[in-house]
């Protein structure tokens, strides 16, 4: 546990040694400002269905920030060590592979949470500035942030996996982006196919569709299935990362 904390500290520090952390935080802050503004603009036009929260997370701006966060946060984690050769010093010290995997993963999760703090603050600042004149449904606000958190757990785990596969950070980033995007597209392609497909299939796709999850959660509904779904996917990718790193020690 001590070793794990030492590794975690190093990972977190190294995020802040490189400009990546600051750039990502700043960019996401700006983009979220845009999506928040877009939501406010819609509500200004008159009575609408949906709240400030649901409009914010349905804007294209949100998706823009969503996809580039994960590659930027995770591409460095393993690929850089592989490239520098520091895997050799790391894994010949008395540390276990799971400690390395979880410390890197958790560091990226911590940073991911930090990234969303300013956007959450948007809502509270807005609420206090308008002195309660706007109605912000707190249930759906917390719901959507919970969802963003677990979606992050999955996407970051996929990013870790991609990073562990290669020594090239660009390749890792592209791979991580591809996984996230494919997963997203899998969820939306039904919308474009219309209703020409069997009902059970639509059900199944809704089960994994990120857009659908966001719709449900921004309406203030709490569904445990998506949460379980993302957590188990995250777990699968972390196990995968562990296996990739252990591969060199396999006896065939």
């Amino acid at each position: 546990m001590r070793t794990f904390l030492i590794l975690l500290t190093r990972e977190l520090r190294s995020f802040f040694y490189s400009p990546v952390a600051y750039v990502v935080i700043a960019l996401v802050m700006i983009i979220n400002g845009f999506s928040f503004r877009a939501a406010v603009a819609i509500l200004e036009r008159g009575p609408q269905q949906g709240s400030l929260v649901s409009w914010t997370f349905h804007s294209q701006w949100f998706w823009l920030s969503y996809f580039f966060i994960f590659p930027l946060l995770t591409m460095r984690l393993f690929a850089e060590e592989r490239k520098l050769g520091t895997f050799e010093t790391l894994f010949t010290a008395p540390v276990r592979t799971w400690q390395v995997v979880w410390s890197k993963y958790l560091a990226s999760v911590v940073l991911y949470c930090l990234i969303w703090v300013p956007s959450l603050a948007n809502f509270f600042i807005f609420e206090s500035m308008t002195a309660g004149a706007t109605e912000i449904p707190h249930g759906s606000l917390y719901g959507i942030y919970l969802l963003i958190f677990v979606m992050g757990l999955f996407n970051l785990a996929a990013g870790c996996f991609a990073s562990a596969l290669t020594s090239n950070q660009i390749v890792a980033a592209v791979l991580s982006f591809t996984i996230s995007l494919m997963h997203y597209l899998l969820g939306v392609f039904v919308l474009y196919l219309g209703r020409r497909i069997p009902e059970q299939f639509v059900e199944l796709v809704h089960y994994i569709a990120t857009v659908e999850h966001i719709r449900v959660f921004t309406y203030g509904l709490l569904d445990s299935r998506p949460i379980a779904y993302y957590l188990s996917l995250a777990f699968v990718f972390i196990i995968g990362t562990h296996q990739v790193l252990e591969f060199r020690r396999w006896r065939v």
Partner: protein
Amino acid sequence: MIDVQNLTKTYVGKTAVDGLSFKVEPGEVVGFLGPNGAGKSTTMRILTGFLSPTSGTARVNGFDVFHQSIDARRSLGYMPENAPLYMDMRVKEYLQFRGAIKGLSGSLLRKRVGEVMDACALTEVRRKIINNLSKGFRQRVALADALVGKPPLLILDEPTNGLDPNQIRHVRELLLAFKGRQTILLSTHILSQVEQTCDRVLLLHQGKLRADDTPQNLVRKLRAASDLHLEVSGGTGFEEHLAKVTGVRKITAEKQEGNWSHFTLRIEARTDIREAIFDLALKNRWQIRELRRELPTLEDVFVELTHV
């Protein structure tokens, strides 16, 4: 300290280490030699638990490097080839991190980091970012890292690779200072260094052990004969005269320089004919400009055992 039995490592379609067996006793300084691609680094990576052996076993400090990897790793300090380091950290910070994951903490950690920075002459650069250090300093940071946990065994893969002569000497002195107190397995291509520092030499070629002996014994055993360089003038028929001296096996005439003739004589093992040559020259009124015996070196042994 190290016990390797029948170690074999096969990469995809390539056998890098082939049935290797050797032992290293506590306190020994062992040189690990071999041409490029002989399998030295591969063996070291297995010993440090970074790679798994394809077959065979290896024990470090009594712990199996595969099944009791963590315990084995606690007993050793490893400096990989090319000294990989975290480039974004500062020297002291890096050593503190490394010391901490090797189980040190609190005042002991601070003390050890201070000690190894002194030993490796890093105190001046302790606040510098590793990326901005020269190669020699990086190499020393990696060496300090290997030392920081005070392990009973050091495994150093080409610790002097890429250093200038002063630095090489510095590392050599550092190693000599550990002699007797610490077990060291080091690979290097600088054979003069091996002759000066190592108690024993393991010579690897194409993954197989070719020699396992003290440097002196290797030199003595492997080259039956030594060479004598002679430059003479003031006479004729040198070769016929020299051939009659007992102990001369073969005479090679080298290039002539003015009226000086240069010969290389191959001499029987454990004989010294320099006095006989001098007497011969005196008798025939030759002049001698050079009479030099060339003792075979570890380099000759290396070339003899590994050239293809």
